[in-house]
């Protein structure tokens, strides 16, 4: 079973936010959407949960009451307590009393939030608040779980907690689609989609995406062509698309980050040549 969108176009006025994007979201797996701000990640996710209509293309999703959604900016009500958030969102899904407790108690327990039920969401740390948002999205026992940047701004310790929760949801049979700006997270997803300016820049399994870049990437102290170079930790990296032997530097086995950056550079350079 697989959900997703096919050849999705979304326009806001004269701006096209999505230009023919397709993504498959299979059950039992985590699929990642990667891209910077303005790439179209949020529009793609919102089109899956029915908050943005497509101008063209098709959407395959389960019944609305079996979709869980964590928005990028909120996810819970700051002036309500953890328990009030659970009760409120549970109510929206027709859950209350024993049925709601049976669903929410194990979620709060695993998210390490069972001890802070009375605390206002606005008084939780950033990481705890994202975990609460995750629990709320999990309340409908979703067949499709859509998470918009669950880990942005979350510290490394809470990021690991979130990852455990997300991978468990997939292992229990949900189809999970999440957006992220952290490429190490995308690298451990079953498949990923890199968006740039509303278009699909790269897609496939992490292995396929990393293998799709032509040429050679070198680690170097000086860049021979700054337009093809970038900083990586303490070193500089430079891409030679034609694979010709670089004069300086050491050829490396590229990671996902190298491939995404090199592909973005290529797109920027192509754009300059063909305005």
């Amino acid at each position: 079973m697989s959900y997703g969108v096919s050849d999705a176009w979304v326009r806001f006025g004269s701006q096209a936010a999505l230009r023919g994007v397709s993504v498959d979201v299979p059950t039992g797996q985590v699929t990642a959407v990667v891209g910077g701000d303005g790439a179209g990640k949020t529009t793609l996710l919102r089109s899956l949960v029915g908050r943005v209509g497509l101008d063209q293309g098709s959407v395959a999703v389960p019944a609305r009451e079996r979709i869980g959604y964590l928005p990028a900016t909120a996810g819970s009500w700051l002036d309500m307590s953890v328990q009030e958030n659970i009760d409120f969102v549970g109510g929206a899904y027709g859950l209350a009393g024993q049925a709601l407790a049976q669903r929410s108690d194990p979620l709060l327990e695993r998210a390490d939030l069972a001890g802070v039920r009375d605390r206002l969401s606005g008084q939780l740390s950033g990481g705890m608040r994202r975990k609460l948002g995750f629990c709320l999205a999990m309340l409908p026992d979703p067949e499709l779980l859509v998470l918009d940047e669950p880990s942005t701004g979350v510290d490394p310790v809470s990021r690991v907690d979130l990852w455990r929760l997300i991978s468990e949801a997939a292992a229990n049979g949900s189809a999970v689609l999440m957006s992220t700006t952290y490429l190490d997270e995308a690298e451990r997803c079953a498949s990923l989609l890199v968006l740039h300016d509303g278009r699909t820049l790269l897609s496939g399994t992490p292995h396929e995406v990393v293998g799709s870049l032509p040429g050679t990437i070198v680690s170097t102290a000086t860049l021979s062509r700054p337009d093809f170079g970038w900083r990586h930790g303490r070193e500089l990296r430079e891409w030679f698309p034609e694979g010709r032997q670089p004069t300086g530097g050491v050829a490396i086995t590229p990671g996902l980050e190298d491939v995404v950056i090199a592909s973005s550079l290529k797109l920027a350079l192509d754009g300059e040549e063909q305005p």
Partner: protein
Amino acid sequence: MTRQSTASPTLLTQSRAVSKRFGHFNAVVDVSMNVAGGEVVGLLGANGAGKTTLIRILLGLIGASEGEALLMGAPPSREQRSSIGYVPQSLGLYDDLTVKENLDFTASAYSQARPSVPADLADHADTLVGDLALGTQRRLAFACALLHRPALLVLDEPTSGVDPLSRARLWDTIHQQADAGVGVLVTTHYMQEAQQCHRLLLMSGGRLVAQGSEHDVIGGTTAVEISTDDWAAAFSVLERAGEAVTLDGTDVRVADGDAHRLQLVLEAAGVPARIRSVPATIEERMTVLARAERVSSTPTRS
């Protein structure tokens, strides 16, 4: 008693045994640190470690309960603050002003001449900041912070939510500033960024628990790296066994783990894996610290 008068002019900011209490909560405990011109100092720690409180004390936005903070060798004042460029996490821009208006306003607040709009923002000069993508807003916040040529740049998670190429470009700007003699204090959650700093400070539970190079900050902490075809299975087996599991790509790692014991746990669960001991990452050091803190729940941090 002569310490203050001997404060080196190149020490742009420093804290001496600074503590800060909010009620019974010790947000910062006995922290001494400094930033000199030309260096990029990374301030690391989990949420609640005390990073932002320390920065607010260094900037003079709040006072210390004990100890002292110095900016340019003197207690923070309005005048001292004019030599700082500060980019808070929230960016501090005016959403209902355009890019050009934000630059003009910032320049006038620092009594600077009207600036020209930087080339990489020129296309957006008349766009309201609220209508800009986050990456572009971050570039503008940088441009505003650099307008008055500050001696010290303080950046609170400067690249959170930014795509990889923009992140690399923002770090180019940070290094250019440091090369020109500016001191930079930067908080980050992103470990690859920590590696770009000349020096690291690691906070946990309000205290400065380690400082120096990446190697110094990691200390003797080790990790066990577990390579397997089914990372999800290995992850959940070890998680259930109460291990401090993290992920690196599709490798499972356990900070402070015992390789032999982990091997037995995985074998018992029928998960084949290749296991080896490796030096810990900064991220793992932070996970170990956070776990130790959860267990001990120091009464002073109730």
